[in-house]
Protein backbone atom coordinates (compact mmCIF):
# COMPACT_ATOMS: atom_id res chain seq x y z
CA UNK A 1 0.00 0.00 0.00
CA UNK A 2 1.45 3.35 -0.99
CA UNK A 3 2.05 5.80 1.80
CA UNK A 4 -0.94 8.12 2.07
CA UNK A 5 0.58 10.62 4.45
CA UNK A 6 4.20 11.33 5.27
CA UNK A 7 5.58 12.10 8.68
CA UNK A 8 6.19 15.65 7.54
CA UNK A 9 2.55 16.01 6.49
CA UNK A 10 1.50 14.65 9.88
CA UNK A 11 3.58 17.35 11.52
CA UNK A 12 1.90 19.97 9.30
CA UNK A 13 -1.59 18.69 10.18
CA UNK A 14 -0.72 18.66 13.88
CA UNK A 15 0.30 22.29 13.56
CA UNK A 16 -3.02 23.15 11.89
CA UNK A 17 -4.83 21.33 14.70
CA UNK A 18 -2.75 23.07 17.36
CA UNK A 19 -1.50 19.77 18.74
CA UNK A 20 2.02 18.99 19.94
CA UNK A 21 3.01 15.39 19.28
CA UNK A 22 6.06 13.78 20.83
CA UNK A 23 8.43 11.87 18.51
CA UNK A 24 6.85 8.58 19.53
CA UNK A 25 3.32 9.95 19.17
CA UNK A 26 4.16 11.38 15.76
CA UNK A 27 5.54 8.05 14.57
CA UNK A 28 2.52 6.13 15.83
CA UNK A 29 0.12 8.74 14.44
CA UNK A 30 1.77 8.48 11.01
CA UNK A 31 1.38 4.71 11.02
CA UNK A 32 -2.23 4.81 12.20
CA UNK A 33 -3.28 7.58 9.85
CA UNK A 34 -1.78 5.69 6.92
CA UNK A 35 -3.74 2.63 7.97
CA UNK A 36 -6.99 4.54 8.31
CA UNK A 37 -6.60 6.72 5.22
CA UNK A 38 -5.62 3.65 3.23
CA UNK A 39 -8.91 2.06 4.18
CA UNK A 40 -10.75 5.17 2.95
CA UNK A 41 -9.56 4.40 -0.60
CA UNK A 42 -12.50 2.02 -0.66
CA UNK A 43 -14.76 4.96 -1.45
CA UNK A 44 -13.04 5.29 -4.84
CA UNK A 45 -14.74 2.05 -5.87
CA UNK A 46 -17.91 4.14 -6.22
CA UNK A 47 -18.70 6.43 -9.12
CA UNK A 48 -20.14 9.52 -7.47
CA UNK A 49 -19.82 11.90 -10.43
CA UNK A 50 -23.53 12.58 -10.63
CA UNK A 51 -24.23 12.48 -6.89
CA UNK A 52 -24.94 15.58 -4.79
CA UNK A 53 -22.97 15.78 -1.58
CA UNK A 54 -25.19 15.40 1.48
CA UNK A 55 -24.62 18.06 4.08
CA UNK A 56 -27.77 17.65 6.10
CA UNK A 57 -29.84 14.64 7.16
CA UNK A 58 -33.18 16.36 6.80
CA UNK A 59 -34.58 19.01 4.49
CA UNK A 60 -34.08 22.25 6.37
CA UNK A 61 -33.42 25.62 4.81
CA UNK A 62 -31.39 28.29 6.56
CA UNK A 63 -32.91 29.02 9.92
CA UNK A 64 -32.90 32.72 10.64
CA UNK A 65 -34.24 34.98 13.34
CA UNK A 66 -34.77 38.71 13.52
CA UNK A 67 -31.57 40.63 14.09
CA UNK A 68 -32.67 41.83 17.52
CA UNK A 69 -30.61 41.80 20.70
CA UNK A 70 -32.13 39.42 23.25
CA UNK A 71 -30.95 38.58 26.77
CA UNK A 72 -27.95 36.28 26.74
CA UNK A 73 -25.75 34.64 29.32
CA UNK A 74 -24.97 36.81 32.34
CA UNK A 75 -21.37 38.04 32.18
CA UNK A 76 -20.54 36.62 35.60
CA UNK A 77 -21.77 33.17 34.54
CA UNK A 78 -19.91 33.41 31.25
CA UNK A 79 -16.67 34.12 33.12
CA UNK A 80 -17.28 31.52 35.83
CA UNK A 81 -15.13 28.82 34.22
CA UNK A 82 -12.43 31.19 33.00
CA UNK A 83 -8.90 30.01 33.72
CA UNK A 84 -8.07 33.69 34.16
CA UNK A 85 -10.29 36.73 34.07
CA UNK A 86 -10.31 40.33 35.25
CA UNK A 87 -14.03 40.29 35.95
CA UNK A 88 -14.83 41.79 32.57
CA UNK A 89 -12.92 39.69 30.05
CA UNK A 90 -10.99 36.47 29.59
CA UNK A 91 -7.32 37.18 30.18
CA UNK A 92 -4.82 35.38 27.92
CA UNK A 93 -1.08 35.45 27.29
CA UNK A 94 0.05 37.91 24.64
CA UNK A 95 -0.81 37.03 21.08
CA UNK A 96 2.65 37.61 19.64
Amino acid at each position, binding site marked *: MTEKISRQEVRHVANL*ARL*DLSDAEEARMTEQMNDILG*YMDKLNELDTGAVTAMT*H*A*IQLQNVFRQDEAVPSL*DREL*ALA*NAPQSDGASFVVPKII
Partner: protein
Amino acid sequence: MELQSLAVHQLRDLLARREVSATEVAACYLERIEALDPALRCYLTMMGEEALREAALFDSGKKDLDASPLAGVPLAIKDVICTRGIRTTCGSRILENFIPPYDGTVAELLRKSGVIFLGKTNMDEFAMGSSSENSSFAVTRNPWDMERVPGGSSSGSAAAVAADLCAGALGTDTGGSIRQPASFCGVVGLKPTYGRVSRFGLVAFASSLDQIGPITKDVEDAALILQTIAGYDRRDSTSVDLPVPDYQAALDAPIKGLRLGIPKEYFIDGMDPEVESAVRQAIRTCADLGAEVVEVSLPHTEYGVAAYYIIAPAEASSNLARYDGVKYGLRITDARDLITTYRLSRSKGFGPEVKRRIMIGTYVLSAGYYDAYYKKASQVRTLIRRDFLNAFEKCDALLAPVAPVPAFKIGEKTDDPLQMYLSDVFTLPASLAGIPGISVPCGFTTSEKLPVGLQILGPHFREDTILRIAHQFEQATLFHHMKPEIKP
Protein backbone atom coordinates in the same frame (compact mmCIF):
# COMPACT_ATOMS: atom_id res chain seq x y z
CA MET B 1 -40.03 -7.55 42.29
CA GLU B 2 -37.40 -5.44 43.99
CA LEU B 3 -37.74 -1.67 43.81
CA GLN B 4 -34.52 -1.11 41.87
CA SER B 5 -35.53 -3.60 39.15
CA LEU B 6 -38.70 -1.77 38.26
CA ALA B 7 -39.07 0.06 34.99
CA VAL B 8 -39.97 3.75 35.01
CA HIS B 9 -43.62 3.12 34.18
CA GLN B 10 -43.91 0.60 37.02
CA LEU B 11 -42.29 3.04 39.47
CA ARG B 12 -44.69 5.70 38.31
CA ASP B 13 -47.64 3.40 39.13
CA LEU B 14 -46.32 2.91 42.67
CA LEU B 15 -45.56 6.60 43.14
CA ALA B 16 -48.98 7.62 41.82
CA ARG B 17 -50.67 5.26 44.28
CA ARG B 18 -48.35 6.54 47.05
CA GLU B 19 -47.28 2.94 47.69
CA VAL B 20 -43.69 4.11 47.68
CA SER B 21 -42.22 7.55 48.33
CA ALA B 22 -39.88 9.45 46.02
CA THR B 23 -37.29 9.38 48.80
CA GLU B 24 -37.48 5.60 49.10
CA VAL B 25 -36.89 5.25 45.37
CA ALA B 26 -34.00 7.72 45.22
CA ALA B 27 -32.40 6.30 48.37
CA CYS B 28 -32.70 2.77 47.04
CA TYR B 29 -30.71 3.70 43.94
CA LEU B 30 -28.17 5.78 45.85
CA GLU B 31 -27.46 2.91 48.24
CA ARG B 32 -27.09 0.49 45.37
CA ILE B 33 -24.74 2.88 43.57
CA GLU B 34 -22.63 3.20 46.68
CA ALA B 35 -22.39 -0.58 46.97
CA LEU B 36 -21.80 -1.53 43.33
CA ASP B 37 -20.48 1.47 41.41
CA PRO B 38 -16.91 1.34 42.79
CA ALA B 39 -16.59 -1.87 40.77
CA LEU B 40 -18.87 -0.99 37.83
CA ARG B 41 -17.66 2.62 37.30
CA CYS B 42 -20.87 3.88 35.71
CA TYR B 43 -20.91 7.32 37.33
CA LEU B 44 -18.38 10.14 37.10
CA THR B 45 -20.26 12.67 39.22
CA MET B 46 -22.94 11.85 41.75
CA MET B 47 -25.88 14.15 42.50
CA GLY B 48 -27.01 12.30 45.64
CA GLU B 49 -27.69 15.33 47.85
CA GLU B 50 -29.67 17.12 45.18
CA ALA B 51 -31.56 13.91 44.43
CA LEU B 52 -32.69 13.45 48.04
CA ARG B 53 -33.58 17.14 48.30
CA GLU B 54 -35.75 16.88 45.19
CA ALA B 55 -37.34 13.67 46.46
CA ALA B 56 -38.16 15.35 49.77
CA LEU B 57 -39.93 18.16 47.93
CA PHE B 58 -42.22 15.58 46.36
CA ASP B 59 -42.85 13.68 49.55
CA SER B 60 -43.65 16.81 51.54
CA GLY B 61 -46.15 17.87 48.90
CA LYS B 62 -44.22 21.00 47.87
CA LYS B 63 -43.91 19.43 44.41
CA ASP B 64 -46.73 17.44 42.86
CA LEU B 65 -46.09 13.76 42.07
CA ASP B 66 -49.17 13.78 39.87
CA ALA B 67 -48.12 16.79 37.81
CA SER B 68 -46.30 14.89 35.09
CA PRO B 69 -45.60 11.39 33.77
CA LEU B 70 -41.98 11.31 35.00
CA ALA B 71 -42.35 13.02 38.38
CA GLY B 72 -40.14 11.49 41.07
CA VAL B 73 -38.30 9.22 38.63
CA PRO B 74 -34.52 8.93 39.16
CA LEU B 75 -32.52 8.98 35.92
CA ALA B 76 -28.84 8.99 35.02
CA ILE B 77 -27.55 11.39 32.40
CA LYS B 78 -24.53 10.95 30.12
CA ASP B 79 -21.77 13.39 30.99
CA VAL B 80 -21.87 15.00 27.54
CA ILE B 81 -25.06 16.88 28.32
CA CYS B 82 -24.78 20.22 30.12
CA THR B 83 -26.33 20.29 33.58
CA ARG B 84 -26.36 23.67 35.26
CA GLY B 85 -24.08 23.85 38.28
CA ILE B 86 -23.07 20.19 37.93
CA ARG B 87 -19.65 19.24 36.61
CA THR B 88 -19.78 18.05 32.99
CA THR B 89 -16.58 16.44 31.74
CA CYS B 90 -17.44 14.63 28.49
CA GLY B 91 -15.05 11.97 29.79
CA SER B 92 -12.16 14.35 29.13
CA ARG B 93 -9.38 15.89 31.20
CA ILE B 94 -9.79 19.07 29.18
CA LEU B 95 -13.19 19.57 30.86
CA GLU B 96 -12.35 17.88 34.15
CA ASN B 97 -13.54 20.85 36.20
CA PHE B 98 -16.01 22.43 33.81
CA ILE B 99 -19.28 23.49 35.41
CA PRO B 100 -21.89 24.47 32.82
CA PRO B 101 -23.74 27.71 33.55
CA TYR B 102 -26.87 26.40 31.90
CA ASP B 103 -28.94 23.26 31.41
CA GLY B 104 -29.15 21.63 28.02
CA THR B 105 -32.71 21.60 26.69
CA VAL B 106 -33.23 17.89 27.46
CA ALA B 107 -32.01 18.40 31.03
CA GLU B 108 -34.39 21.34 31.38
CA LEU B 109 -37.31 19.37 29.95
CA LEU B 110 -36.67 16.42 32.24
CA ARG B 111 -36.28 18.65 35.31
CA LYS B 112 -39.57 20.37 34.45
CA SER B 113 -41.14 16.90 34.29
CA GLY B 114 -40.04 16.20 37.81
CA VAL B 115 -37.18 13.86 36.98
CA ILE B 116 -34.59 13.43 39.73
CA PHE B 117 -31.03 13.21 38.38
CA LEU B 118 -28.86 10.67 40.15
CA GLY B 119 -25.62 11.62 38.47
CA LYS B 120 -23.52 12.02 35.30
CA THR B 121 -22.37 8.86 33.61
CA ASN B 122 -19.05 7.74 32.20
CA MET B 123 -18.39 7.79 28.47
CA ASP B 124 -15.68 7.54 25.86
CA GLU B 125 -14.00 10.95 25.65
CA PHE B 126 -16.13 13.40 23.64
CA ALA B 127 -18.30 10.43 22.63
CA MET B 128 -15.50 8.99 20.50
CA GLY B 129 -15.39 5.29 21.10
CA SER B 130 -17.34 2.07 21.46
CA SER B 131 -16.24 0.70 24.84
CA SER B 132 -15.51 3.41 27.49
CA GLU B 133 -11.82 2.56 27.09
CA ASN B 134 -11.33 6.07 25.69
CA SER B 135 -12.67 7.70 28.85
CA SER B 136 -9.93 9.65 30.61
CA PHE B 137 -11.32 8.66 33.99
CA ALA B 138 -12.49 5.07 34.14
CA VAL B 139 -13.34 1.95 32.22
CA THR B 140 -16.95 0.98 32.86
CA ARG B 141 -17.60 -2.75 33.32
CA ASN B 142 -20.30 -4.74 31.62
CA PRO B 143 -22.62 -5.89 34.45
CA TRP B 144 -23.07 -9.24 32.65
CA ASP B 145 -19.32 -9.93 32.68
CA MET B 146 -16.99 -7.60 34.52
CA GLU B 147 -14.04 -8.52 32.26
CA ARG B 148 -15.90 -7.11 29.27
CA VAL B 149 -16.79 -3.70 27.97
CA PRO B 150 -20.33 -2.37 28.23
CA GLY B 151 -19.96 -0.82 24.77
CA GLY B 152 -19.85 2.90 24.14
CA SER B 153 -19.78 5.74 24.02
CA SER B 154 -22.86 5.82 26.31
CA SER B 155 -21.10 3.24 28.46
CA GLY B 156 -22.04 4.36 31.97
CA SER B 157 -25.66 5.01 31.03
CA ALA B 158 -26.17 1.56 29.49
CA ALA B 159 -24.35 -0.27 32.29
CA ALA B 160 -26.26 1.68 34.96
CA VAL B 161 -29.60 0.72 33.44
CA ALA B 162 -28.56 -2.94 33.15
CA ALA B 163 -27.27 -3.02 36.71
CA ASP B 164 -30.33 -1.24 38.12
CA LEU B 165 -28.27 1.74 39.28
CA CYS B 166 -30.99 4.05 37.92
CA ALA B 167 -34.54 3.75 36.63
CA GLY B 168 -33.45 4.82 33.16
CA ALA B 169 -30.89 7.02 31.48
CA LEU B 170 -30.07 9.41 28.68
CA GLY B 171 -27.36 8.58 26.21
CA THR B 172 -26.21 10.04 22.91
CA ASP B 173 -25.68 8.38 19.55
CA THR B 174 -23.51 9.71 16.74
CA GLY B 175 -22.49 6.45 15.06
CA GLY B 176 -24.17 3.89 17.33
CA SER B 177 -23.32 5.07 20.82
CA ILE B 178 -26.78 4.37 22.25
CA ARG B 179 -27.66 1.29 20.22
CA GLN B 180 -24.40 -0.61 20.62
CA PRO B 181 -24.00 -0.30 24.42
CA ALA B 182 -27.71 -1.07 24.80
CA SER B 183 -27.13 -4.26 22.82
CA PHE B 184 -23.98 -5.19 24.77
CA CYS B 185 -25.75 -4.58 28.10
CA GLY B 186 -29.09 -6.20 27.31
CA VAL B 187 -31.20 -3.05 27.61
CA VAL B 188 -33.27 -0.87 25.28
CA GLY B 189 -31.64 2.08 23.52
CA LEU B 190 -33.19 4.46 21.01
CA LYS B 191 -31.53 6.92 18.64
CA PRO B 192 -34.17 9.36 17.39
CA THR B 193 -34.34 10.84 13.89
CA TYR B 194 -31.81 13.62 13.44
CA GLY B 195 -33.54 16.83 14.48
CA ARG B 196 -36.17 15.14 16.67
CA VAL B 197 -34.52 15.98 19.98
CA SER B 198 -32.82 19.31 20.66
CA ARG B 199 -29.03 19.36 20.72
CA PHE B 200 -28.90 22.65 22.64
CA GLY B 201 -26.62 21.94 25.58
CA LEU B 202 -25.30 18.73 24.06
CA VAL B 203 -21.55 19.10 23.81
CA ALA B 204 -20.98 18.68 20.09
CA PHE B 205 -18.93 15.87 18.56
CA ALA B 206 -20.32 15.65 15.00
CA SER B 207 -23.04 18.21 14.44
CA SER B 208 -24.77 16.50 11.52
CA LEU B 209 -24.94 13.16 13.35
CA ASP B 210 -25.31 13.68 17.13
CA GLN B 211 -28.64 12.80 18.79
CA ILE B 212 -29.74 12.36 22.39
CA GLY B 213 -31.95 9.38 23.25
CA PRO B 214 -33.25 7.16 26.06
CA ILE B 215 -31.61 4.00 27.40
CA THR B 216 -34.15 2.03 29.41
CA LYS B 217 -35.24 -1.29 30.91
CA ASP B 218 -38.10 -1.74 28.50
CA VAL B 219 -39.61 -0.22 25.38
CA GLU B 220 -42.50 1.52 27.13
CA ASP B 221 -39.96 3.51 29.17
CA ALA B 222 -38.16 4.55 26.00
CA ALA B 223 -41.46 5.85 24.62
CA LEU B 224 -42.18 7.70 27.89
CA ILE B 225 -38.82 9.45 28.00
CA LEU B 226 -38.77 10.23 24.27
CA GLN B 227 -42.20 11.84 24.69
CA THR B 228 -40.71 14.31 27.13
CA ILE B 229 -37.48 15.17 25.31
CA ALA B 230 -38.67 15.23 21.69
CA GLY B 231 -39.86 18.42 20.05
CA TYR B 232 -38.91 21.67 18.39
CA ASP B 233 -36.44 23.96 20.14
CA ARG B 234 -35.63 27.32 18.59
CA ARG B 235 -32.28 27.32 20.38
CA ASP B 236 -31.15 24.44 18.13
CA SER B 237 -31.23 25.51 14.51
CA THR B 238 -31.18 21.86 13.40
CA SER B 239 -34.26 21.08 15.46
CA VAL B 240 -37.25 20.13 13.35
CA ASP B 241 -40.62 21.77 13.86
CA LEU B 242 -42.82 18.71 13.48
CA PRO B 243 -45.53 17.59 15.91
CA VAL B 244 -44.54 14.89 18.38
CA PRO B 245 -46.86 11.87 18.10
CA ASP B 246 -48.17 10.00 21.14
CA TYR B 247 -45.46 7.34 21.35
CA GLN B 248 -47.12 5.38 24.15
CA ALA B 249 -50.39 5.12 22.24
CA ALA B 250 -48.46 3.72 19.29
CA LEU B 251 -47.05 0.78 21.27
CA ASP B 252 -50.07 -1.47 21.55
CA ALA B 253 -51.00 -1.90 17.89
CA PRO B 254 -50.17 -5.47 16.81
CA ILE B 255 -47.61 -5.79 14.03
CA LYS B 256 -49.64 -8.23 11.95
CA GLY B 257 -49.36 -7.20 8.34
CA LEU B 258 -46.42 -4.84 8.83
CA ARG B 259 -43.65 -5.43 6.32
CA LEU B 260 -40.25 -5.97 7.92
CA GLY B 261 -37.22 -5.74 5.64
CA ILE B 262 -34.14 -7.84 6.29
CA PRO B 263 -31.12 -6.16 4.66
CA LYS B 264 -28.91 -8.90 3.24
CA GLU B 265 -25.74 -6.82 3.64
CA TYR B 266 -26.18 -6.92 7.42
CA PHE B 267 -25.56 -10.65 7.64
CA ILE B 268 -21.92 -11.08 6.75
CA ASP B 269 -19.04 -13.49 7.02
CA GLY B 270 -17.08 -12.78 10.13
CA MET B 271 -20.19 -12.14 12.23
CA ASP B 272 -20.36 -14.10 15.46
CA PRO B 273 -22.66 -17.04 14.56
CA GLU B 274 -24.36 -16.85 17.97
CA VAL B 275 -25.24 -13.19 17.37
CA GLU B 276 -26.62 -14.04 13.95
CA SER B 277 -28.59 -16.91 15.38
CA ALA B 278 -30.21 -14.77 18.08
CA VAL B 279 -31.15 -12.08 15.56
CA ARG B 280 -32.58 -14.61 13.08
CA GLN B 281 -34.65 -16.11 15.89
CA ALA B 282 -35.96 -12.63 16.66
CA ILE B 283 -36.97 -12.22 13.03
CA ARG B 284 -38.87 -15.50 13.24
CA THR B 285 -40.64 -14.25 16.38
CA CYS B 286 -41.78 -11.16 14.48
CA ALA B 287 -43.00 -13.35 11.63
CA ASP B 288 -44.93 -15.47 14.17
CA LEU B 289 -46.58 -12.24 15.34
CA GLY B 290 -47.94 -11.84 11.84
CA ALA B 291 -45.45 -9.46 10.29
CA GLU B 292 -44.45 -10.05 6.69
CA VAL B 293 -40.72 -10.55 6.34
CA VAL B 294 -39.09 -9.43 3.07
CA GLU B 295 -35.49 -9.44 1.94
CA VAL B 296 -34.15 -6.04 0.92
CA SER B 297 -30.80 -4.70 -0.15
CA LEU B 298 -28.81 -1.72 1.12
CA PRO B 299 -26.02 -1.99 -1.43
CA HIS B 300 -23.77 0.76 -0.06
CA THR B 301 -23.59 -0.64 3.48
CA GLU B 302 -19.95 -1.65 3.14
CA TYR B 303 -18.94 1.99 2.49
CA GLY B 304 -20.50 3.29 5.69
CA VAL B 305 -17.42 2.92 7.89
CA ALA B 306 -15.18 4.80 5.44
CA ALA B 307 -17.73 7.58 4.90
CA TYR B 308 -18.43 7.98 8.61
CA TYR B 309 -14.81 8.01 9.67
CA ILE B 310 -14.17 10.87 7.29
CA ILE B 311 -17.30 12.91 8.07
CA ALA B 312 -17.44 12.51 11.84
CA PRO B 313 -13.77 13.33 12.51
CA ALA B 314 -14.03 16.28 10.10
CA GLU B 315 -16.92 17.72 12.06
CA ALA B 316 -15.18 16.87 15.33
CA SER B 317 -12.01 18.70 14.32
CA SER B 318 -14.13 21.80 13.88
CA ASN B 319 -16.21 21.34 17.02
CA LEU B 320 -13.25 20.61 19.24
CA ALA B 321 -11.34 23.69 18.07
CA ARG B 322 -13.08 25.57 20.87
CA TYR B 323 -11.04 23.74 23.51
CA ASP B 324 -8.16 26.14 23.59
CA GLY B 325 -7.81 27.03 27.25
CA VAL B 326 -9.24 30.52 26.79
CA LYS B 327 -12.82 30.58 28.09
CA TYR B 328 -13.15 27.31 30.01
CA GLY B 329 -11.46 23.99 30.47
CA LEU B 330 -7.84 23.13 31.01
CA ARG B 331 -5.29 25.88 30.45
CA ILE B 332 -1.59 25.13 30.75
CA THR B 333 -0.20 28.36 32.09
CA ASP B 334 3.52 28.13 31.35
CA ALA B 335 3.03 29.36 27.80
CA ARG B 336 4.59 32.67 26.77
CA ASP B 337 2.10 33.29 24.03
CA LEU B 338 -1.42 32.42 22.98
CA ILE B 339 -0.72 29.84 20.31
CA THR B 340 1.53 27.92 22.66
CA THR B 341 -1.28 28.03 25.24
CA TYR B 342 -3.55 26.38 22.69
CA ARG B 343 -1.00 23.70 21.80
CA LEU B 344 -0.03 22.81 25.37
CA SER B 345 -3.58 22.83 26.72
CA ARG B 346 -4.96 20.72 23.91
CA SER B 347 -2.08 18.27 23.88
CA LYS B 348 -2.29 17.76 27.63
CA GLY B 349 -6.08 17.74 27.80
CA PHE B 350 -7.07 15.44 24.95
CA GLY B 351 -6.64 11.67 24.95
CA PRO B 352 -5.11 9.68 22.06
CA GLU B 353 -8.35 8.75 20.27
CA VAL B 354 -9.57 12.34 20.30
CA LYS B 355 -6.23 13.52 18.93
CA ARG B 356 -6.37 10.85 16.24
CA ARG B 357 -9.82 11.94 15.10
CA ILE B 358 -8.92 15.61 15.18
CA MET B 359 -5.88 14.81 13.04
CA ILE B 360 -7.90 12.80 10.50
CA GLY B 361 -10.60 15.46 10.45
CA THR B 362 -8.14 18.28 9.96
CA TYR B 363 -6.41 16.39 7.16
CA VAL B 364 -9.55 15.49 5.20
CA LEU B 365 -10.74 19.09 5.31
CA SER B 366 -7.42 20.62 4.42
CA ALA B 367 -6.69 22.29 1.09
CA GLY B 368 -5.95 19.73 -1.57
CA TYR B 369 -7.68 16.88 0.21
CA TYR B 370 -11.21 18.21 0.76
CA ASP B 371 -12.57 16.89 -2.55
CA ALA B 372 -10.91 13.52 -2.37
CA TYR B 373 -12.10 12.77 1.12
CA TYR B 374 -14.79 14.97 2.68
CA LYS B 375 -16.72 15.74 -0.49
CA LYS B 376 -16.46 12.13 -1.64
CA ALA B 377 -17.68 10.85 1.71
CA SER B 378 -20.61 13.29 1.61
CA GLN B 379 -21.58 11.99 -1.80
CA VAL B 380 -21.42 8.41 -0.54
CA ARG B 381 -23.59 9.57 2.36
CA THR B 382 -26.26 10.56 -0.19
CA LEU B 383 -26.08 7.05 -1.68
CA ILE B 384 -26.43 5.44 1.76
CA ARG B 385 -29.43 7.61 2.57
CA ARG B 386 -30.96 6.74 -0.78
CA ASP B 387 -30.53 3.02 -0.04
CA PHE B 388 -32.75 3.42 3.04
CA LEU B 389 -35.38 5.49 1.22
CA ASN B 390 -35.54 2.83 -1.50
CA ALA B 391 -35.81 0.02 1.05
CA PHE B 392 -38.63 1.83 2.88
CA GLU B 393 -40.70 1.66 -0.28
CA LYS B 394 -40.75 -2.10 0.17
CA CYS B 395 -41.09 -2.29 3.97
CA ASP B 396 -42.22 -0.34 7.02
CA ALA B 397 -39.06 -0.97 9.03
CA LEU B 398 -35.80 -2.90 8.86
CA LEU B 399 -34.58 -5.62 11.23
CA ALA B 400 -30.87 -6.20 11.65
CA PRO B 401 -28.15 -6.98 14.15
CA VAL B 402 -26.67 -4.08 16.13
CA ALA B 403 -23.08 -5.31 16.13
CA PRO B 404 -21.24 -8.23 14.52
CA VAL B 405 -20.03 -9.45 17.91
CA PRO B 406 -21.23 -9.40 21.52
CA ALA B 407 -19.41 -7.45 24.27
CA PHE B 408 -15.67 -7.93 23.78
CA LYS B 409 -13.05 -8.19 26.49
CA ILE B 410 -11.49 -5.04 27.94
CA GLY B 411 -8.26 -4.38 26.03
CA GLU B 412 -9.15 -6.66 23.12
CA LYS B 413 -9.56 -3.92 20.50
CA THR B 414 -7.47 -1.08 21.88
CA ASP B 415 -4.33 -1.76 19.81
CA ASP B 416 -5.91 -1.29 16.42
CA PRO B 417 -8.16 1.77 15.99
CA LEU B 418 -9.32 0.64 12.56
CA GLN B 419 -10.59 -2.69 13.97
CA MET B 420 -12.62 -0.79 16.55
CA TYR B 421 -14.09 1.39 13.79
CA LEU B 422 -15.06 -1.63 11.68
CA SER B 423 -17.19 -3.03 14.51
CA ASP B 424 -19.60 -0.10 14.02
CA VAL B 425 -20.56 -1.31 10.54
CA PHE B 426 -24.25 -1.94 11.35
CA THR B 427 -24.97 1.24 13.26
CA LEU B 428 -23.16 3.87 11.20
CA PRO B 429 -25.34 3.88 8.05
CA ALA B 430 -28.50 4.81 9.96
CA SER B 431 -26.63 7.68 11.59
CA LEU B 432 -25.38 8.93 8.23
CA ALA B 433 -28.93 8.81 6.85
CA GLY B 434 -30.42 10.45 9.95
CA ILE B 435 -33.07 7.76 10.42
CA PRO B 436 -34.22 6.52 13.85
CA GLY B 437 -33.10 3.18 15.28
CA ILE B 438 -33.76 1.17 18.42
CA SER B 439 -31.90 -1.73 19.97
CA VAL B 440 -34.05 -4.17 21.93
CA PRO B 441 -32.74 -7.29 23.75
CA CYS B 442 -33.30 -10.42 21.67
CA GLY B 443 -31.28 -13.10 23.37
CA PHE B 444 -27.93 -14.19 24.66
CA THR B 445 -24.93 -15.95 23.19
CA THR B 446 -25.00 -19.62 24.16
CA SER B 447 -21.39 -20.04 25.22
CA GLU B 448 -20.70 -16.82 27.14
CA LYS B 449 -24.29 -15.78 27.96
CA LEU B 450 -23.72 -12.25 26.65
CA PRO B 451 -26.68 -10.08 25.59
CA VAL B 452 -27.55 -9.63 21.93
CA GLY B 453 -29.67 -6.76 20.63
CA LEU B 454 -32.07 -6.61 17.70
CA GLN B 455 -31.83 -3.35 15.75
CA ILE B 456 -35.03 -1.92 14.28
CA LEU B 457 -34.59 0.96 11.85
CA GLY B 458 -37.41 3.14 10.58
CA PRO B 459 -38.06 5.98 8.13
CA HIS B 460 -37.38 9.53 9.25
CA PHE B 461 -39.67 10.59 12.12
CA ARG B 462 -41.25 7.13 12.42
CA GLU B 463 -40.13 6.46 15.99
CA ASP B 464 -43.74 5.41 16.56
CA THR B 465 -43.31 2.49 14.14
CA ILE B 466 -40.02 1.23 15.53
CA LEU B 467 -41.25 1.57 19.12
CA ARG B 468 -44.36 -0.38 18.23
CA ILE B 469 -42.40 -3.24 16.65
CA ALA B 470 -39.90 -3.24 19.53
CA HIS B 471 -42.69 -3.32 22.13
CA GLN B 472 -44.65 -6.09 20.44
CA PHE B 473 -41.49 -8.14 20.04
CA GLU B 474 -40.47 -7.50 23.65
CA GLN B 475 -43.85 -8.49 25.02
CA ALA B 476 -43.64 -11.78 23.12
CA THR B 477 -40.33 -12.62 24.83
CA LEU B 478 -38.88 -12.65 28.36
CA PHE B 479 -35.53 -10.95 27.77
CA HIS B 480 -36.53 -7.66 29.40
CA HIS B 481 -37.06 -9.49 32.70
CA MET B 482 -33.56 -10.89 32.80
CA LYS B 483 -31.00 -9.21 35.03
CA PRO B 484 -27.28 -9.78 35.40
CA GLU B 485 -25.92 -11.37 38.53
CA ILE B 486 -23.35 -8.77 39.47
CA LYS B 487 -20.11 -10.11 40.90
CA PRO B 488 -18.09 -7.05 41.94
